[in-house]
């Protein structure tokens, strides 16, 4: 049993008029890759920003605890949090095109982390930046170190972001849709790199994505989020072979590339009708307005998470009966 690195307990994040993340709990074990999946608006990115304590000004953590390495991050002051950021917890963002400062050379941007946390001199930081660029497989690192972001391609910039993130050997790396903005061949390279670095540096990765293909290939465990809540948690194999929550089933039947013998020409890709907006103001199960198995009792209260095994949670009380009903076949693959 590997030790717990991060424990999020009952996290609720609120804006003045809405609570985009509600009662979210999950944990990350040292060295594993946890994937958080969900559509846009499900609260994934906000959760990531909350872990870094970098929420937008209007948002705030309303309740819950974020225990990292036996310390509650929500109880730290700004200075203590600054020491953790970039050193123990690092983050890479979705848009490599805009996430780097356009007027600063990449070497200096990487060196900045080292100067902030390891008190390296300018020369030593530059040397380390070159090493890091080599680590993320950037060719001719000695020359590239003085380049500016506009001289690099999108994939290269994301590598620079990764180099910056792993500069101080963090224990936890949060990757918020790291490959969404990249084309598919580059995506695989970047994710492979992340996975290699995870093993080499023994860090845990929280991989936020809406791409189920990415989950299948790179995740150790998966959390499915819908409208700010965890609706299902599973190992990837279980999730793809035996999805329990109607939302997960919908997601899977809406994605074409999960089974190799399945091609979109051979069978229909079903959509999940409606939109995530319908969850706003819903009293009971947030997925109820879009769920074709919804029953009257779903509107009474938010369904609690039911543990099937310690690693298998689902927030729907009707999963066993759903499987028994052959009518639900169009939802399964």
């Amino acid at each position, binding site marked *: 049993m590997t030790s717990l690195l991060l424990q999020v307990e009952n996290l609720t994040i609120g804006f003045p008029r809405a609570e985009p993340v509600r009662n979210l709990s999950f944990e990350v074990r040292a060295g594993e890759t946890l994937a958080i999946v969900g559509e846009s608006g499900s609260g994934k990115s906000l959760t990531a920003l909350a872990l870094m304590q970098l929420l937008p000004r209007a948002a705030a953590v309303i309740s819950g605890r974020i225990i990292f390495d036996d310390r509650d991050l929500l109880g730290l002051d700004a200075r203590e949090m600054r020491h953790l950021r970039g050193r123990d917890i690092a983050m890479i963002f979705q848009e490599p095109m805009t996430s780097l*400062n356009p007027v600063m050379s990449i070497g200096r941007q990487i060196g*900045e982390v080292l100067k902030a946390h390891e008190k390296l001199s300018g020369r030593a930081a530059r040397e380390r930046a070159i090493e890091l660029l080599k680590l993320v497989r950037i060719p001719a690192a000695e020359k590239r170190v003085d380049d500016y972001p506009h001289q690099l391609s999108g994939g290269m910039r994301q590598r620079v972001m990764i180099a910056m993130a792993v500069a101080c050997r963090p224990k936890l790396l949060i990757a918020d849709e790291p490959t969404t903005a990249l084309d598919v061949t580059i995506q695989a390279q970047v994710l492979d790199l992340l996975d290699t670095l995870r093993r080499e540096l023994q860090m845990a990765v929280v991989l936020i994505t809406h791409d189920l293909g990415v989950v299948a290939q790179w995740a150790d465990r998966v959390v499915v989020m819908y409208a700010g809540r965890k609706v299902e948690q599973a190992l990837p194999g279980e999730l793809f072979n035996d999805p329990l929550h109607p939302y997960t089933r919908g997601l899977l039947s809406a994605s074409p590339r999960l089974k190799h013998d399945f091609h979109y020409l051979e069978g229909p890709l079903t959509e999940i009708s409606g939109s995530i907006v319908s969850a706003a103001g819903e009293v009971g199960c947030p997925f109820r307005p879009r769920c074709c198995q919804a029953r009257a009792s779903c509107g009474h209260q938010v369904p609690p998470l039911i543990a099937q095994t310690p690693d298998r949670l689902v927030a729907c009380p009707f999963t066993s009966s759903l499987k028994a009903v052959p009518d639900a076949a169009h939802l399964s693959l």
Partner: protein
Amino acid sequence: MPVLIRIARTLRRTLLQAVPTILGIVVLNFFLLQLAPGDAADVLAGEAGSATQESVAALRARFGLDSPVLEQLATYLGNLAQFSLGFSPRYGMPVADLIAQRLPGTLTLMAVALLIAILLGIVLGSLMANFAGRIPDRVLSVFSLLFYSIPSFWIGLMLIVLFSIKLGWLPSGGAGTIGSQLKGLPALFDTARYMVLPATSLALFYVAIYARLTRAAMLEVKSQDFVRTAYAKGLTPFGVTARHILRNALIPITTMAGMHIGGMLGGAVVVETVYSWPGLGRLAFEAVMGRDFTVLLGILLLSSLLVIIANAAVDLVHAWLDPRIGAR
């Protein structure tokens, strides 16, 4: 070094563009001034009070004012080609010497005013951006609006009333204590004392502009993704502001500052008159009143040179601030 290559490229382009620009300015201004009624001889004759037709004609002939316009232009351009700015009928001395006397005063006044404006503007703008929407921002906004709308001659007069007459702290005009034998550092302090009021009156309008510009630019940069990246690295708020936000926000400010150098020469006319500061602005004003077109052309030529140099300097600063510019 890629930086040096960028800078060299910018300089060469600027030089190639400067020559036709200056020629165009001289020719255009020459014709524009010909449109004004009267000439130097008229004014001189009028001031003398007892001029006859013959004596005015003699004056014109002496200064070449009676030859055809195109011939006058050719003569002027010929002089220019020999690096001579011509001779002033009114002052009775070479224009180059006249300008050389006045130029240092104006240049220091402008440089000090611009420096005050940029520094103060950036500091106030950063404060406003930092407290956007809250009390300090509101208060500073009101002040910047005030300074933006009050004409500089009025500010000048009010500063004189307050600091020279009521408080008696600073001199009300001139460029130095008359007849003082100060040398070295004390002389510098003496000049600085005389410089404070005119430089401030000239600068306040621009302080307001730069403060508002800095505020807007910083707020815009602040919401960019790379600022979030910088915070995610664990940098201090000051480090993020100084190294990431401000540096990016400076680009529009330098652009504006470059454009304002020309405008400041115009503002200097008013301020120099209010504070009887011996500079180019006042010389230009006197040249207009005396229809002393050679002097005026010389000043215009010099100011256009100054603007071109300022623009080149801004280009250089840009190439240094923003690596993407040199790459184009």
